[in-house]
Every structure is written in C-alpha cells, then in structure tokens.
C-alpha cells in the first residue's frame, strides 16, 4: 500500500512534521515494494489555503493512506474526496510510524481541527 507522510527532511532519519499543510516534504512510501521518495511540498510557502494545496499534491501521488499527526478541515475534505484514509501518527519517528501502521495499530484521525484561516485573527 502506498503511504504519504509529512516529514521534516529528505531522509528516513528525520522526523514526522507536526504540520500537514506547512510540511517541507512528503515521504511517499510503498509498504509492499519498500520503495520511497520525497516530494517537495510547494504549499509550504503559500499565503493561504496551504492545507488544500498540500492535500492536492498528496492526492496526485495516488497514495491510499495519509499518516499525519494532524490535518486541517479543508485538507481533510480534499483527502477524503479522493477516498484516501487519514491515520494519526503517535511518534516522531518515521520508521516507527510506518511500522505501527503496518501492524494495524494506528487509528483513523477523527478529531480534525478547524484551520486557522482568516486574516491575521484578532
């Protein structure tokens, strides 16, 4: 199965990024072939709607699952429209996140947080 994970750097030793929309890279990993590559998240520097654009990037890679510690509302709408499942990672380590997923121990991310849209807030 093909997975996407937001990660801090382009190595397996880096860690899972806490922000989905603003993550610098996505790791695309195939659990069957063990093949992997890193994708630059061009949404990281966008002014607004980063989550939506990042989600579009992930969807375009045709992964079947997204492993992330959190995910904004709008991004989740995009991901779900593509029938991609969102799982919540527990640890920072990329490897352990993948392993825990393979063991079937990650749960679906259901507490989606509303994004911080708007214009600077109050």
């Amino acid at each position, binding site marked *: 199965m093909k997975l996407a994970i937001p990660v801090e750097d382009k190595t397996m030793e880096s860690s899972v990024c806490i922000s989905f929309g603003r993550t610098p890279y996505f790791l695309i990993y195939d659990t069957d072939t063990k093949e992997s590559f890193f994708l630059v998240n061009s949404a990281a520097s966008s002014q*607004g*709607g980063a989550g939506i*654009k990042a*989600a579009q990037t992930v969807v375009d890679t045709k992964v079947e699952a997204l492993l992330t510690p959190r995910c904004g509302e*709008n991004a989740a*709408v*995009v991901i779900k*429209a*593509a029938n991609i499942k969102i799982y919540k990672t527990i640890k920072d380590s990329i490897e352990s996140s993948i392993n825990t997923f393979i063991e079937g121990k990650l749960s679906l991310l259901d507490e989606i947080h509303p994004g911080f849209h708007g*214009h600077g807030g109050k």
Partner: protein
Amino acid sequence: MKIAVLSGKGGTGKTLVSVNLAAAANEVVYIDCDIEEPNGHLFFKPEKIQSEKISIKIPYVDEKLCNGCRKCVDFCKFNALAYIGTKFLVFEEVCHSCGGCVLLCPEKALFERDKVIGEIQKGVSENVTVISGIMNTGEASGIPIIKKLLNDVNKDENHTFIDCPPGSACIVMESIKDVDYCILVAEPTIFGTHNLKMVNDLVKIFNKPYGVVLNKCLEGENPSEKFCIDNGIQILGKIPFDNELGTINSNALISVRESEKYKDLFCILLQTVMKEVQRETVINS
C-alpha cells in the same frame, strides 16, 4: 469628518465611547464596524431600519464544460480550488473573490454566483444615524462588509464615528484607512497598556493623528496614562470607573441621554476631540 474609535481588545469601552460621543453630538452618523459582534445598535435601538444584504462572488463549475486541465487550481494564489478525480472543489471561505479563475478558464467552465456573507442595517436614533455591519457566523473575511459600510459614508457630509473591530488585524486597518482622526480607548492595567501599544503602533503606521481616552479610571497608578505621558501621546479625557455608569451601560442605555453628569463629561470630551481634529486638519492641509 470621520473619527475612528479603537481598542486592542473587546470590552475596553470602545463602544461606550463611540456611542456616547455620537449621542453627545448634533446630527452625526455612527457606524458599527465590529461586524462579528456589533452591539452599538443595542444602545441606540434605532428605528425605521432598512437592511441590505452584502454578498461576494464565488466561482462554481459547470462540470459538463470542465475538462480537468487544472489551470484554475494552479492559478489560485489562495488555494481555494482543488480537483480530485473528477470532482471539482471550491473552498468558499478561502476564496478571495478575485474572479481570476473565471477569466482564466480556457473552457469557460467557471461562473460566478453571489454568496451572502452578511448585511448592513441602517436606522435612526434621535440625532444619530445608526449603521451596523453584521457578518454571518463562519465567514472568514468581513472586509467586503467594511468596505461597503465606509463607502456609503464617504459621500456623507455629517460627522461620522466609527466603532472599529477590536485588535489590530487587517479588518481594523480597513476600518481606519480613510478616517481623519483616531481615538484609542485604554484600560488602566498592565494588560490594557499592552493592548494600547498594539493599536498605537497601528495608527502610527497609518500616520493618523490620534489621542487616547483613559477608561475605567480609579485613584492611583494608571500604567496606560504613564505610557501616554512617556511617549508624548495626547490624553483626550478620562472616564471614571463608577457604579452609576456601569449600571447605565449594562442596561444598554446611553449615559449621555440618561444623566446630566455624563452628558457633561462626554460633551467636554467631544469638544476636545473636535478641537484636536480641526487642529490636525489645519496642519495637514
């Protein structure tokens, strides 16, 4: 002459000051730009209300015409569009209504529709024309409502008091952009001083003449007053912290219309403000 009343956060007496100054004046316009929580109308209880819906343009797709080229998705700087499988998604709260995608679509598959985001209510309360902007909950940006509110008064000859949204975000900037003078309302606490600094920075960026009204004043230390003195900021007046005013205010009454004492206080404040405004306009013209 347009005068904006601002504060760094809600509850400092911004509405108290703007409502009472307007009530103390002759024929004036009061505009409530605090569109997330407009409450000036609760005090004025305006009559003969006319309302007007405010809407923005949101794109929608005709799926029969769209070929999925995604030019629009890549184009939208705000990332309000996504194309998933064969599904076209528009994130309405993210869209800034620039209309670009509609112009750009090579298949002419995008169209615009109106989406109501709030309304403007206009009424009369004795000497005051009361105009309030109201934004529907869940909307991300009230800028179009503020624009409309202030556009209409730009044609008005009367003096106008603008009750701004709290804070210093871009909606506040939009509210003070074209005003002639700003009144900052501050509380006598350390936290109040911090908020005062925030709006103080904002009006300075906009290069607006301004002064401070110290609200909720008690005997003793007033860090906001000290901040004004240290920074050479004009103090326009002080409003005492007392029960009578508190009671009038919490009953949603206008102190100027209820008590001679406060009528005097706000008339004097109004005179001070007007003198300042005139002085500043002379200097700037």
